[in-house]
């Protein structure tokens, strides 16, 4: 290892606070990027199982009629 002790690795002769701050931020963002979508998917599936019956979508109907005389009167 480049540093001879744990303390030296933490201190990094003065620059440690900045380096470890960046490391912490990176860990937070990387974990967030991987965990958040997975968690929202799991929560969505859980919600889905609760209201299982999908509300029936009204089936659209189209009728085409040939009418030879339009005016009803």
């Amino acid at each position, binding site marked *: 290892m*480049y540093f001879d002790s744990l303390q030296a690795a933490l201190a990094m002769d003065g620059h440690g606070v900045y380096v470890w701050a960046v490391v912490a931020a990176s860990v937070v963002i990387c974990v967030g990027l991987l965990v958040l979508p997975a968690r929202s998917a799991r929560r969505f599936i859980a919600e889905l199982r609760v209201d299982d019956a999908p509300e029936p979508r009204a089936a659209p109907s189209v009728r085409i009629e040939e009418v030879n005389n339009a005016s009803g009167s």
Partner: protein
Amino acid sequence: MWTWFHKLGSPPWMYRISGRILAILLPLTVLMLAVGAVWGLLYAPMDFKQGNSFRIIYFHVPASVVALAGYYVMAIAGAVSLIWRMKMAEVAMKCAAPVGAALTFLSLLSGAIWGKPTWGTYWVWDARITSMLILFFLYLGVMALYQAYENKEAAGKACAVLSLVGMVNIPIIYKSVDWWYSLHQPATIKFTEESAMHSSMLQPLLLMILAFYCLFTCALLLNMRSELLRRGAGTGWVRSLVGAH
């Protein structure tokens, strides 16, 4: 040959395939990130000019590189969704935006923190960091436009157009910022000058860049899976999936 292309468009197929890819890629990504970080932080030699603060490069550069690549991925997905009207490409574009924005934010944050020990101030109008800030605005613009439309299909099309316009502009923005930066501080060294790096410093950096690319891919696929579930709520394949869990 075209069946996979059309299959690519069907949510259940995509959901299954992405599941299999993630099963392999996710652990690999975590491993690479861990190894690269430890290697760069603890084993790589110190930079004699900047001291240990240079180790921030192992997070700043990969985040910047992948954030920029992420915008191109988003724009190309947008183009595919506009030209071939592929739903899956639109989902990919929508899901790529937040991941890219997060990495751009990490790049900005690490750049700012790096500025303190190196330049004595948290915000330095360095060419790279300024371009990253503009890239961040481009990402936020696409995400804000997506939220603004009620009809999500229209939102997808509008964002595809905007990200394509952004893609055309990115090289112009980067070049103009470089010219602007060189105008004011011609003498100083560039932040991320990798040229003079010794191989023992460079290898962990390349590993970290690869790791961040895989991270982007995993996050994108995870985001897409969640989006596919949400969009396919009423359909059969989601029902069967829910039953199976």
